[in-house]
């Protein structure tokens, strides 16, 4: 019988510094591990603690995966101190990922904020690998400052892909910044997408998700086409420990991806 609370072993193969507060960990699991984009895992620092993360790598790569982690809490602080080759524990993957099958033939609009680009990068890689299935992929991403843009060097490469359209914005510009200045909702006007035939994916800090969703609804996107990556303190990952409940759902097992239509009648979803 499988012990659902027991992690399997994995090794930190590489550590990439993305921004002053964000690092990407390349992790090689010692057991076979497959995930769907949008699903999350629980990462264990042996003897120290466990926290949920959504892989940021291409699910098509089977022998290793990546998580992009902001130094924000106790476990993430410890993770940021890790040397290479360190042994970690992994449980998962948990939850339902993005329903890629229902995105076929549509304009895909992705709205991201801050470290929210981490799970979205995994989604982007999945979309890029079968780009012919989609009409276009439009990314609108906001970060606090140019230095806080995650995967900054990779983004120009993504822009070169056929049918991909990317616009970035920052709240606080730095010398040399030529892009848009303002919160992410300021780059959601005149979107090159078909309102009636699109899937919108929103991921970022709660306050950004709230205002982006309100803006998108105002623009006329139907609630059932807006996909939100929700986050709470998922602990067990299996709908048992109780922590990540919102209304009648557990984010860990019923999500973490929900349509706005599923959540709109639940109070306080952005808190």
């Amino acid at each position, binding site marked *: 019988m499988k012990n659902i*609370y027991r992690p399997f072993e994995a090794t930190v193969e590489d550590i990439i510094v993305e921004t002053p507060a964000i690092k990407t960990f390349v992790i090689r699991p010692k057991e076979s591990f497959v995930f769907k984009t949008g699903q999350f895992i629980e990462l*264990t*620092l042996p*003897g*120290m603690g466990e926290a949920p993360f959504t892989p940021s790598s291409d699910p098509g790569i089977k022998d290793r995966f990546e998580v992009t982690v902001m130094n924000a*809490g106790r476990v993430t602080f410890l993770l940021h101190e890790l040397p290479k080759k360190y042994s970690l524990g992994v449980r998962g993957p948990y939850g339902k990922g993005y329903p890629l099958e229902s995105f076929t033939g549509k304009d895909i609009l992705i709205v991201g904020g801050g470290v929210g680009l981490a799970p979205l990068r995994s989604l982007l890689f999945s979309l890029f690998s079968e780009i012919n299935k989609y009409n276009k992929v439009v990314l609108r991403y906001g970060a606090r400052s140019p230095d806080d843009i995650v995967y900054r060097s990779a983004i120009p490469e993504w822009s070169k892909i056929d049918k991909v359209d990317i616009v970035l914005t920052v709240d606080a510009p730095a010398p040399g910044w030529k892009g848009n200045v303002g919160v992410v909702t300021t780059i959601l006007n005149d979107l090159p997408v078909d309102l009636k035939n699109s899937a919108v994916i929103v991921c970022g800090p709660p306050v950004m998700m709230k205002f982006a969703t309100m803006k998108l609804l105002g623009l006329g996107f139907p609630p059932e086409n807006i996909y939100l990556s929700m986050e709470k303190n998922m602990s067990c990952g299996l709908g*048992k420990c*109780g922590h990540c409940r919102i*209304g009648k759902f557990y984010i860990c097992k019923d999500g973490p991806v929900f349509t706005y239509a599923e959540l709109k009648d639940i109070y306080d979803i952005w808190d």
Partner: protein
Amino acid sequence: MDNFYYLESARINELLTRLKKDYNVFSPGLKEPNFTKGTDYSYRNLSDNQQFVFNPYRVIEPLKSFLTPFMENAAAYFNPGKDTIDLGKTIVFGAKNCDITSLKIQDFVFMEGVEVDYSYRMKREDTLLVSGDCIDYKEVCFCLALDVLPYPTMGFDLNLSPVSDGYLVEAGSEKGKALIEKFREYFSEAKDTQVWARKTKREDIVNRLKRHLLAQNIPPKESLQRLVKDGYNLDTWKEFMLTCVECGGCNFICNTCHCFLLADTSDDNKNKRLKLWDSCQYANYSRAAGGANPLKARYQRLRFRFTKKFDFFMENLGMPACCGCGRCIEVCPGKIDLREVWKDLQNKLKAKQ
């Protein structure tokens, strides 16, 4: 009459002595008298010279303690050697129908859904429940208001109903029948008169409870989900939380509350993961990395407890996570009484109409 037997009071202690050879036996004992609280019963691991006590109403501790203990080793990992789990067979006497019925919630959480918690399932399979009819009630008892009877009709292995000089024993499961077969010499065939006596006593306790509840004016069971949903933004939560000291007692003593946290430790270089009860009344219950906390205020957490019990479980299991045992009322140092919360929601909603 297949499942009915008679067990003489005079022989029950001898039976318990026999049972203790093969099982870990837990049975209620009388707590030291406390004038402010009345007579209470508590589970004890029966030792040799202790006599069997039939508790007239539910004991203090929730039955879940035997299946999902306050603290347990959930996993050991990356250690040399093999991780073993040592589980013995257990018999628990003294559970009442509120306890038995609310185990449906624990079973749903730990044995259904995406994956099974095998530690829970093993304990569940290795634990025999010998329940008993209620022959009395406490002030805080309100099971009938939630359509839970003061005697079990399913979910037990054996059930004891006191009749003259002994107990009418009903076998409610194959495990229960097998236990009776193994110790057949203690059990005789039940007589029609004994079954009739049980029926009479059961009608009597139901009638007494009905009278007890009459004065309490508890809103109907069918309205509870609507009350917590429609009453989401009422002041009730802010008013009732004023005396909450965030002790978590209401959660820990509740037989349906199941929340837990996982905590990692390392003793002698052995990595361990502990599973501990958690309480949604604690300030850190929903705190996430970076400091976000959707349940920052006490009133939000009080409301969270109610929406979990009366909305979430109605939606997902079709039953409320409350069986009317009244333990949370009794344990609360702030005297927060969930019956009063319901009534206040009902009154405020009526006034708004």
